[in-house]
């Protein structure tokens, strides 16, 4: 299948590959997907006291589009607040990388990963993610 230049660029030069200490108080980890489905993403964000994402790292088991989606995501979330990062939509990722329809699920997985990472840091900080979500849903 033909990949877009952006997918190939991220695949060949993935940004922010690595891992952060998932035990640290200022690190949120999101692990999504399943090996049986052919993709697993681990996204980690390091968040300062103001809720700003200072660093982000990823590792992904999956196809080129999954790797590119997570690599792009780490670039996008750095410097954003966790509230802003949470708002990133899979459609924006899919559009930026020009993913074909059969690869849209890769961008969905990336969206799930950042949501899971934010949820994790909120839980660590005693902010009830469920409550925040409920408020949002109610609002």
């Amino acid at each position, binding site marked *: 299948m033909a990949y877009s230049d952006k997918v190939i660029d991220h695949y060949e030069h993935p940004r922010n590959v690595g891992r952060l200490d998932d035990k640290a108080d200022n690190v949120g980890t999101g692990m999504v997907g399943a090996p*049986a489905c052919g993709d697993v993403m681990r996204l980690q964000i390091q968040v300062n006291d103001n809720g700003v994402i200072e660093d982000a790292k990823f590792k992904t088991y999956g196809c080129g589009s999954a790797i590119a989606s997570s690599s792009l995501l780490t670039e996008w979330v750095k410097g954003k607040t966790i509230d802003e990062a949470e708002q990133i939509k899979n459609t924006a990722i899919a559009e930026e990388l020009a993913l074909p329809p059969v690869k849209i699920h890769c961008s969905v997985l990336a969206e799930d990963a950042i949501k899971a990472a934010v949820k994790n840091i909120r839980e660590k900080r005693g902010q009830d993610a469920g409550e925040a979500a409920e408020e949002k849903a109610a609002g």
Partner: protein
Amino acid sequence: MTMKLPIYLDYSATCPVDPRVAATMASLLTMEGNFGNPASRSHLFGWKAEEAVEEARRNVAELVNADPREIVWTSGATESDNLAIKGAAHFYQGRGKHIITSKIEHKAVLDTCRQLEREGFEVTYLNPREDGIVYPEQVEEALREDTILVSLMHVNNEIGVVNDIAAIGELCRSRKVIFHVDAAQSAGKLPIDLAELKVDLMSFSAHKVYGPKGIGALYVRRKPRVRIEAQIHGGGHERGMRSGTLPTHQIVGMGEAFRIAKEEMAAESERLLGLRDRFWGQIKDMEEVHINGSVEQRVPGNLNVSFAFVEGESLIMSLRDLAISSGSACTSASLEPSYVLRALGVNDELAHSSLRFSFGRFTSEQDVDTAAAEVRKAVEKLRELSPLWDMYKDGIDLNTIEWAAH
């Protein structure tokens, strides 16, 4: 010497036409060539074409030690499988409506069996053992009073393992059950002696043996006589079993390809085995690398390998200089890994991480060395990127984790 890239290592999918075959075929096309319709009885053009077709039929028959009159031309192994299975099922349905096959057959067999199920036949799909082989005792257990047909492949297209068709043939014959064998992946690679084997119907393809695409053959045994119902009706060509004007150039191409195969098979098999061992020798020391299917009972040119903790499609993307197949069908919407590997009990993540390397007539030692080095590099790179590799290195058993399937 500069290498030609990408390196073709997908001979199980198809082969280039051997230049000797191509040259022969070219002589059958134009006004100056032998272009006639072999069914034309009234002039030299027809007679010459018929002669060429019959010589090709002899060449195909000789490779498998059959009588030329037992060879029926088709458009390829898919049509041969359809003709054999539907043809025998329809002819013998008065005796019973039960068919036995396996879960790892080619789709040409599986989908044909599905169609017969819709028509009221009952099909048993045998599960191969872990080594990918369907054993005669499994067939014996599945045989019933109303079984009319057993259809099994000689060599599996994905993992290259070889079924014992001699033993299964004896079994079928003793129970008066028709035995069909798909030999698309074995003809020209393994010796086949139909005078000895108790096989009633056998499918062949030209393009897996360095012949052209679009031509194949079905062997239909004469003694004891096996009957099939035609699936394509028309001018009564091929003794009524398969109508349609014979494509002389395709047929002669297949004949020449099979003639060369008979001549060169022994030496070629030895060379391919050497290449396969050479390739495997350069990657086998890597951690968590597994061969799928029996190593001993396998055609020389095939190696199907799982590289744990990396995903097949991204691996192929890294291996742009190699033309190979992935056991992962991730490009399809289904996200299903290979049904063949699953039937062997290979877990889904290993199935996703598997590659099929198939070596052939034009593969060189240099090709194999380059391929092995590229594979090592790609797997190492992707493992650095893989959270599963991290977990494995941390001593975490991935099976203990509850994954959210999506």
